[in-house]
């Protein structure tokens, strides 16, 4: 156990970087972003944590009592001594304080502390849900006791259909007493939802998740951001499907700019693309968040017109499963890294990719399970269906919620050094899975592994399964396209799809996004007997 005696003195490490981010969220001041220059870990401290950190900065060598006095005198805030000790221990656990042992806390210890913290948050959430939410209160008078995060498996799974059908009973009674908002999903999975969020829930998830990636955190903390997404998504989240003026597209006190969008990024008009260029030159975002299939249109335009934009530090690809082809082109054109994030309108941001290609789950916002068809956890290296538990979504709680996504489990320690729970990558949506000729499942990501390994010459593409053994790859050509690419693509896909597969490859100018405006790398089309055994088994268990 770490020493928490009253006389212990606490000193901040000298090799930490501090970024004031209080302006980002005026409603929740103060905020301080701390960056550990040794491990490149980022910590966003809020409210009392931030005050305690500032007191330590002021006081230098402090006891907990000194910190309490400084908080009262300098910031006019009375903070309980025990609470200060807990926060200081947390700082210590995260390696922010000088210690006798100058080596930063070991990965396993940080992992242990994160797990303990997450269990505390999870227990609080489950207690709240079973005490206050009618849907759960009717099931059990007593909240289930959780000894570990894994005990979450004793709770029922929650399907989208359950949320739709029981929405009134899934709401926190009198939730309107708080600042709140209703969110509607775009229905990409074919199952739309409406949920209720308290305060700035989505914003909090974005902050806590983006800060797990140092490059993105730095860009995010700079405060200047732009978003390019589908007009449908914009309709439910950000702005309506209409061409708005620059000023009307600014959000968050002018820090976030939404770029005008339309439904067909393959055929964005030159004037529209030049408007994007002008917007980005004017706003100069450090972080660009996008549907990569939409940003690709702009990237190709920039490449063709040989234009360079002011430096963007990082791009986050979200809202849809991006292709590695698009990731590569966009990264080359914008000269910055592209990181994938995972999230959804109904539950917020969950995870972000690190420099080593692994997805890190935000430990303060979500617990992510990966389940097999029987509902049991899959092993590392296996693909499972995502079940999410939101830790701070209190007004429409989502416990073990099935968003309809698949991901690759990977519990190995990540080379980036971060201690959060990780998974390998998102594999795709239930509705986007296709089958091999033997009936087994192929994920969009597995298809992308094959297509993206082909020589350059493809931009957008989609693989449609038209029958048990019939597949059609449609693609939009890029510079460097060679006629042999079609044969190469067919030859490369055959081993993935299995014996007897018939693959046709067709160049096209029209790949149609779904009704939400998002692109799918794969889909089953046509009227033939399709199987979705995985989905049905898991649904029956919920």
């Amino acid at each position, binding site marked *: 156990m770490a020493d928490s005696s009253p006389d212990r003195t606490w000193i901040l490490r000298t090799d930490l970087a501090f970024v004031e981010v209080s302006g980002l969220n005026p409603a929740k001041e103060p905020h301080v972003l701390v960056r550990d220059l040794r491990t490149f870990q980022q910590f966003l401290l809020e409210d009392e944590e931030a005050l305690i950190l500032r007191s330590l900065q002021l006081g230098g060598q402090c006891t907990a009592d000194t910190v309490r006095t400084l908080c009262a005198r300098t910031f006019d805030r009375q903070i309980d001594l025990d609470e200060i000790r807990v926060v200081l221990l947390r700082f210590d656990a995260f390696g922010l304080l000088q210690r006798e042992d100058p080596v930063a806390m070991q990965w396993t210890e940080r992992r242990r502390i994160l797990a303990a913290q997450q269990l505390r948050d999870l227990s609080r959430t489950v207690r709240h849900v079973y005490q206050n939410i009618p849907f759960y209160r009717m099931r059990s008078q007593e909240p289930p006791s959780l000894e570990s995060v894994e005990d979450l498996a004793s709770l029922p799974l929650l399907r989208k259909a359950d949320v739709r059908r029981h*929405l009134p009973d899934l709401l926190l*009674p009198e939730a309107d007493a708080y600042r709140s908002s209703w969110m509607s999903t775009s229905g990409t999975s074919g199952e739309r*939802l409406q949920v209720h969020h308290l305060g700035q829930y989505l914003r909090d998830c974005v902050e806590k998740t983006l800060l797990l990636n140092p490059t993105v955190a730095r860009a995010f903390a700079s405060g200047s951001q732009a978003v390019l997404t589908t007009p449908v998504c914009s309709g439910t989240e950000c702005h309506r499907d209409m061409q708005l003026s620059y000023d009307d597209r600014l959000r968050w006190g002018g820090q976030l700019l939404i770029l005008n969008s339309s439904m067909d990024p393959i055929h964005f008009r030159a004037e529209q693309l030049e408007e994007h260029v002008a917007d980005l030159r004017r706003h100069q975002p450090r972080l660009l968040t996008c549907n990569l299939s939409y940003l690709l249109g702009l990237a190709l335009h920039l490449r063709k017109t040989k234009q360079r934009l002011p430096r963007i530090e990082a791009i986050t690809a979200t809202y849809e499963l991006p292709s590695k082809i698009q990731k590569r082109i966009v990264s080359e054109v914008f000269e910055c890294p592209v990181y994938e994030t995972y999230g959804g309108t109904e539950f917020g941001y969950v995870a972000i990719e690190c420099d080593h290609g692994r997805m890190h789950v935000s430990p303060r916002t979500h617990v992510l399970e990966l389940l097999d068809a029987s509902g049991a956890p899959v092993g590392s290296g296996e693909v499972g269906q995502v079940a999410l538990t939101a830790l701070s979504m209190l007004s429409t709680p989502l416990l073990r919620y099935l968003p309809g996504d698949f991901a690759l489990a990977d519990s190995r320690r990540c080379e980036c050094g971060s201690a959060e729970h990780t998974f390998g990558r998102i594999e795709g949506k239930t509705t986007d899975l296709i089958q091999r000729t033997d009936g087994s499942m192929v994920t969009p990501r597995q298809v992308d592994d094959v297509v993206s390994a082909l020589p350059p010459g493809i931009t957008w593409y989609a693989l449609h399964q038209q029958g048990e053994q019939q597949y059609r790859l449609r693609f939009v050509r890029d510079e460097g396209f060679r006629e042999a690419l079609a044969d190469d693509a067919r030859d490369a896909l055959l081993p993935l799809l299995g014996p007897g597969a018939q693959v046709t490859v067709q160049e096209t100018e029209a790949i149609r996004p779904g009704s939400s405006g998002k692109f799918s790398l794969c889909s089953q089309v046509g009227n033939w007997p399709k199987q979705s055994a995985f989905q049905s088994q898991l649904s029956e268990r919920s």
Partner: protein
Amino acid sequence: MTDFLAHVREHFPVLARQVVGRSIVYFDNAATTLKPDRVMDTVVRYYRDNTANIHRGKHLLSEEVSEEFENVRTKLAEFLNCAPAEVIFVSGATHGIHLVANGLSLTPGDNVVGTVLEHHSNILPWAARGEFRAAQLTEAGLPDIEDAARRIDERTRLLTVTACSNVTGIHVPLEPWVRLARAHDIPILVDAAQAVGHRRTDVRALDCDFLVLSSHKMCGPTGAGVLYGKRERLEALSVDLLGGGTVSVVESDFTYKLRELPWRLEAGTPDIAAVLGMGAAVDYLDELGFEAIGSQLAKLRRAMLRELDALDGFRSLHPSTELEAACIFSLVDTTGTFAPDFVSRFLSDTYGIMTRGGHHCAHPLHQYLDANGSLRSSLYFYNTEEEVGHLGRALRAVSSMRGSGR
């Protein structure tokens, strides 16, 4: 459930569809009504057994379908009480209004006087060609005919009025509007899209010059409708949509001679299956009888008004019971908590009730009524009082989600 309902509900297979474990409640009839089996069968039969173009061949199939097509014209003429040549098949009411707007050859400075109740389809064709002047509403919610009279001047080319508002549901007494048109010697066009499926329409008795309707709002297929016009009014329209079927001859110098009514106004191959389906819909409504339909709708209106009376936090745009109205009820959330789209999705996905949220192609009316959109429930004769009760419970759940009732 009454015998009448037990009888008619069986004709609409979509009513058996289950959403969230319940049979759906279809309350979006002002957008489009459901289609009975016989209408769908008629459409399918045309494609399956009798595919041919009309009026263009002498082979058996073409002869058969041409005759059936023209029989529908006669049927519609009987339905509206006019001559077959006065029935122009169009794609819907919007198309019909455009035929008149084009045919009147409006020039800048001309105006058309209408009402603020109108659907965009009865505003934009006029506003795009001249000036559209909208009479305001009386306190009761009827269009103010005196205001309309004040707006008529020497450049007024047409008076137009909806027979039934697609937002408030009010039935507009049309006779005074026809008299106003006669007094100023201008033609009058009635937009009857919402009205014809709800009550008997007699264009001779009404003495209007033009009237438009859409098949899909009266149990028929989409893609068909009627422009009715008095023969002399139709003949006076300029024809700028020309093509196969509209002319009797094209000379070597490309001059041409227009055919007689109605064909001169029906360019190109029509949606034959939809027209045949519209005929089946008219047969169906005639068999049910407008008296029985009206009686059922009156019952539903009373039930709906009882539910709305018991509802907190919503303002109804429906007129008072002293006025005649269709079963169209638009609600505005007075607390500003929920957008109409949100409530519509909630009713659909949680209660299986299909309603509509938005402005219902009536932005000017919503602005006039100080409403940023509304939630519209529109009922038809196959709906039931039980379904109205289900909607009432669902709307009370919405109220409770504001936190007021839990």
